[in-house]
């Protein structure tokens, strides 16, 4: 009994799963996945990890930066979003309600031509956090930030400041500062 070693990597399997391949390659991988028990096991494990990431995303256990279009999909899926839109220098009284799935902040800023964008968050009790090289669309004119809902629910009355920093090789430049006056939901 002989067995040829399977050399297909996870990226190829995942590309097959997501439908990223041309039709001829997809048909070849259809046949391979049917014949290769090892690949089925590896792909099943990858999909289980993906399911877990999806669950954690929806549970609000961690924060993320996404395009506004993604927030639109959360909304379309029936999730309850509390959204705040701020201009540079702006402030807002904010909270997270018991029925809210996510709090979304749209931070307007002149992003055109910015090569790299960092976010600095200052909290009077927790200190300073810096998010390096966040993904953004320079044409969008705003950065969409979704903080961890679980973290927001743990906060008391507090004031947080967020700054968007344009980073180049030579310097850093503040694009906008935004103030969040947070109160817990009553």
């Amino acid at each position, binding site marked *: 009994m*002989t067995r040829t070693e399977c*050399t297909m990597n996870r990226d190829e399997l995942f590309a097959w799963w997501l439908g990223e391949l041309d039709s001829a390659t997809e048909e070849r991988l259809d046949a391979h996945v049917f*014949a290769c028990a090892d690949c089925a096991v590896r792909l099943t494990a990858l999909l*289980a990890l993906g399911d877990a990431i*999806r669950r954690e995303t929806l549970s609000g*256990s*961690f924060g993320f930066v996404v395009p506004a279009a993604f927030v639109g999909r959360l909304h379309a899926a029936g999730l309850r979003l509390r959204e705040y839109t701020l201009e540079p220098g702006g402030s807002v009284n904010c909270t997270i309600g018991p029925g809210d799935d996510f709090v979304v902040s749209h931070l307007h800023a002149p992003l055109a031509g910015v090569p790299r964008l960092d976010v600095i968050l200052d909290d009077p009790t927790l200190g300073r956090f810096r998010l390096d090289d966040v993904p953004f669309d320079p044409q969008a004119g705003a950065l969409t930030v979704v903080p961890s809902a679980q973290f927001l629910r743990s906060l008391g009355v507090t004031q947080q400041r967020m700054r968007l920093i344009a980073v180049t090789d030579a310097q850093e430049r503040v694009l906008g500062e935004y103030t969040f006056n947070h109160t817990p939901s009553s």
Partner: protein
Amino acid sequence: MVSFGVETDDDATLARRIAAGGSTPDTATESELCRRLAPRIRLYGLKHLRSEAAARDLMQDVLVLLLEQLRSGALRDPSQVASFALGSARQLVLDRRRGERRRARILEAFPIDLLPGADPAPEPLDTTRLQYCLAALPERERSVLVMTFYDDRPADQVAVELGLTAGNVRVIRHRGLERLRTCMHSAEGTA
């Protein structure tokens, strides 16, 4: 270059044994063949039908068809069992898309309890560790993984929304998954 190495020997051995038994069912061998093939058929069904229920239906249908063909001797070369299963799955997916209801008719002829009841579930993930590992990812990688896995979005669509190229998204996705796996495994090693 991709090498499409295959693992058919064990499948084929089981298939030959079933075929040799003719109309006398070798339940243990049939169950073993079903256990081996079921996860692959399910994955194919999930990919093409995007529904767990539909994928499980497809899995049952293909396995029943396969056993039927092996028992009757209609599958002339049992070593081609994986190819036959793939061909059947393709046809059944097409049938389902056309709204045909082949399943009820086929299932009447075979006992359902022959089929595997549940897929072999992967090891449960350590949720607390996963939360830590996700939070520790670089922002770009976390964003791409969230956007990818939330609704199984391919790289080109994620790229359009992020203002990146599809190739760039694939690189970020690859790095993120590798970093996540390393982080999760390092927890296992220290547990």
